[in-house]
């Protein structure tokens, strides 16, 4: 059908050189005689993203750190972004690739709006699209070095899932990326339940973010929480958690066993 061809052409336009459109080599500094394979290394990276469903929708949290190897180079990087009216995307990994993905998603939303038929893309649609984007890049051995988290509510249906740089994708009632998989998911498994209120959900996420701040060297104590409900996406201003260091055991831990730590 002709409209299908148009759709395919639009995808080629978007995917062409990730973004460029008419001339994919406009910004290439070399013209190779054989196909280039990339598989890069990440430079500026974001750490864990955490997400849970709750009674009225979905909550997603992430800190605002942009690490550069072991240095916390940028301390105000927004890793949670709204997509359309119903969805939020959070990213772990290379921030330049996340910025490119946001532009790709922007194109998707705009192109869809141009059909002018009151159809909007919901979380499952964005998830499916992102999966195709990530998997296709992986097949070109030129991945977007990110794990993306995707959450939202549309028509009363709550949705939450992940897509990795290899194109692995899944949905669940609670998900995490990066270090959060190891430290936060077990807490979710124990303490999450279906009817959590906004306050209970927030407390659970903050508990896990605190653990990550203590135990993930890339994490900083400056985070944002996003609340997605039927009414839309709301991302909080960055804020910090109260930390606790005044345990007796912390003040003189090596008395009696010098050289210990």
């Amino acid at each position, binding site marked *: 059908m002709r409209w299908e061809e148009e759709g395919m052409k639009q995808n080629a336009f978007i995917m062409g050189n990730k973004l460029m459109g008419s001339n994919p080599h406009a910004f290439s500094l*070399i013209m190779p005689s054989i196909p280039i394979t990339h598989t*890069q*290394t990440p430079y*500026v*990276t974001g*750490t864990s993203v955490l997400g849970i469903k709750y009674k009225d929708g979905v909550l997603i949290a992430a800190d605002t750190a942009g690490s550069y190897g072991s*240095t916390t180079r940028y301390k105000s990087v927004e890793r949670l972004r709204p997509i359309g009216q119903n969805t939020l995307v959070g990213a772990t990994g290379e921030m*330049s690739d996340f910025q490119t993905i946001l532009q790709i998603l922007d194109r998707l939303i705009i192109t869809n709006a141009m059909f002018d038929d009151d159809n909007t893309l919901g979380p499952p649609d964005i998830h499916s699209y992102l999966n195709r984007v990530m998997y296709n890049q992986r097949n070109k051995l030129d991945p977007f070095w990110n794990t993306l988290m995707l959450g939202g509510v549309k028509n009363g249906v709550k949705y939450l899932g992940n897509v990795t740089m290899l194109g692995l994708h899944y949905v669940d009632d609670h998900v995490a990326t990066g270090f959060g998989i190891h430290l936060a998911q077990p807490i979710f498994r124990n303490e999450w339940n279906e009817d959590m209120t906004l306050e209970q959900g927030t407390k659970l996420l903050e508990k896990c973010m605190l653990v990550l701040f203590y135990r993930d060297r890339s994490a900083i104590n400056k985070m944002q929480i996003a609340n997605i409900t039927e009414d839309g996406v709301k991302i909080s201003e960055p804020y910090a958690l109260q930390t606790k260091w005044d345990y007796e055991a912390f003040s003189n831990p090596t008395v009696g066993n010098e050289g210990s730590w």
Partner: protein
Amino acid sequence: MEPMAGEWTSAAHSMGTTIMAVEYNGGVILGADSRTTTGVYVANRASDKITQLTDNVYLCRSGSAADTQVVSDYVRYFLNQHTIQLGREATVKTAATLVKELAYQNKSFLQAGMIVAGWDKYDGGSVYAVPLGGTLLRLPFATGGSGSSYLYGFLDQAWRPQMSKDEAERFVVKSIALAIARDGASGGVVRTVTVNEHGVERNFFAGDKLPLFHEEIPPGRNSLLA
């Protein structure tokens, strides 16, 4: 599997240079040292690492000298055409986006950490960082190069928003001087470029006129010749 485990641990490079740009109340100040090294040899002790892209936008370059020269040449060329077609001066954001696009699309070939800064009538003074990988970040101030490692603590403590032009320039010169004091790959003179609505001003702070820090002594006579 997870992005945090992997090759970046063995991919550390030293990027000779200290570069910096600061937004102040009315414009921007760009600053850089002047040392270019090939290995341990100082190939040029008076280089100019602050390159003009348009009348109102400048670029600080760190990393591979060749890579950053090529990127700045292309961006200067694109912006020249863009300005003619647009009919008015290019914005800092446009210049920064072009730099980012080159850095991002060619990330596997380039070793270029750059800072784009300038003044336009829409956003006033703006500073954009384009680190390795091609992330684009608008910031109130940015640093780069191997010398920048020594500045994080100082900047965390000393930087304030809305500095005046003179305060901001003193701040930049002091920062670069501190980095030069500790980073072997940074040295020479401190060059600054101030860009605001009135135009552009270049300044030069000679190596022997920079502030002295811990355990550094002023030049003087040999104590044996008293």
